[in-house]
């Protein structure tokens, strides 16, 4: 059994220890925008002059919502049954490099607001058909009672 990231090009350092796992992306040396996930071309300006960048673990919630109904298939991280679903917060998180990424948030709903400090957590989200643990990212509200 191995651990594989949720998709190629978004994660690094997960091979030895999840403690060392980080999110990655690129910064454009022409327009300066920072993007989540490796790319060949800049989504903002079309340049191919991109530098790989590893993102820090600490961020801040830019905005958020609560999924009151479960996502529909092919959702893999829990039930798609409305009656068994616990409302789940998701949000946009600003990281120090300037990148803004979408993420599942973790913590009691009352602990999550715009500006709430959050910390990266990378952990197995589900097991794929090959028996591998699929690693996913989420951001945990620092005040959250874990």
């Amino acid at each position, binding site marked *: 059994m191995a651990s594989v990231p949720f998709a190629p090009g978004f994660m690094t350092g997960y091979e030895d220890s999840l403690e060392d796992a980080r999110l990655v992306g690129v910064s454009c040396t022409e327009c300066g925008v920072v993007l989540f996930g490796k790319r060949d071309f800049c989504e903002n300006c079309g340049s191919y002059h991109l530098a790989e960048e590893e993102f820090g673990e600490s961020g801040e919630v830019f905005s958020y919502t609560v999924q009151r109904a479960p996502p529909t298939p092919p*959702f893999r991280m829990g039930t798609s049954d409305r009656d068994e679903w616990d409302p789940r917060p998701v949000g946009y998180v600003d990281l120090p490099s300037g990148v803004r990424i979408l993420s599942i948030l973790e913590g009691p709903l009352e602990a999550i607001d715009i500006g709430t400090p959050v910390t990266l957590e990378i952990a197995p989200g589900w097991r794929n058909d090959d028996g591998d643990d699929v690693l996913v990212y989420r951001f945990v509200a620092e005040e959250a009672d874990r």
Partner: protein
Amino acid sequence: MTPTPDPESGIQRDAYVGGVGIHEFGRFEKSFQEIGARAVEEALADAGMSIHDVEHALCSNAYLPVSAGIQVFERLGRTGIPISDVDAASASAVVGVEYGRYLVGAGIADVVLAFGVEKSPSGFLDPTNIYPEWMCELGLSQNPQYWAMNARRHMHEYGTTEEQIARVAEKNHRNSTDNPNAHYTEAFDLEEVLESRLVCDPIRLLELCPPNEGAAAAVIVSEDAIEEYGLADPVRIGSCVHTTSRFPLQQVASYCTTPTDNESVHRQTADLAYERAGIAVDDVDVAEVQDTDAFCEIEAYEELRFCDRGEGGALVESGATERDGDLPVNVSGGLISKGEPIGASHLGQVYELVLQIRGDAGPRQVDGVETGLAHVYGAHGQCGVTVLQEP
């Protein structure tokens, strides 16, 4: 910077809407071919034409099988004309009107049929059609979550309230009681809207537009055709502009939205539409805008320059966008009550504006409409604005 080469340079003459038709929006035990054919027949009848008069047709849709347009024409007659399908998500029907205007404007055709037809799946749309697989697997794939986060941030920055957002839904549902072509025609008071269940905080069930089925059509004609067919009440297409969002996408599926200095896609599109129609926002007498959820309408007020940024909540609260207000918005009931047959929704807006400009909108009629604006926005940053005017 203009996002596309200026197509106005190739336009030698005006284009008009000579006839409109609609198949009501909702859920039906009918094929898309039947639904589409009804709207086309009605539009042709409205223009006093037959299928043989159409020189070129554009079928807008986003969720139908290949060559849906000719499949609709199978029911009306295979006349051998060029019929192509156009997809630009929620802005699909803008492209039909835009290209119809160009074909007529460039002197290539005198009668072009732009029609939109859709049978969207019910409930949340199939997420794999819009999102990368990993976003679906993580469940970051519910459309309302994007609109909800935008609303939440607007509340934080400008003090917009849940009551103001609910007021949009209350208004549009109330307007729909006079629209027999809407999916839902029931009025709900502010309290009922605010007590409906949360879908993605702060957006509630009665504040959301359901994807559904329906069709609408417009016959786009030249002045020569107006004369030849004796059309009494043509409506001029002042402008019709389709653009796509620069980075980052707002309100729609995106896992990375690092801020940039780029203009919002709504404003980029609307400013071109005002410029090409030679009008200012003050000239707009009535507007139909994309109310995918109630907050989207507030954002549209601001991005289309009906008010300053941050003032949208106050604008709806003031009553200015009511049917008897200074700038009535979504007098048809909007997508919140009509539902959104993705490929047809903009032509549904065009249908409403044409009736408003002709003075044929019955109980929905706004006094003295000379200029109407229609705006749509959807998946992958597809945006469009059409300006229609009394000739």
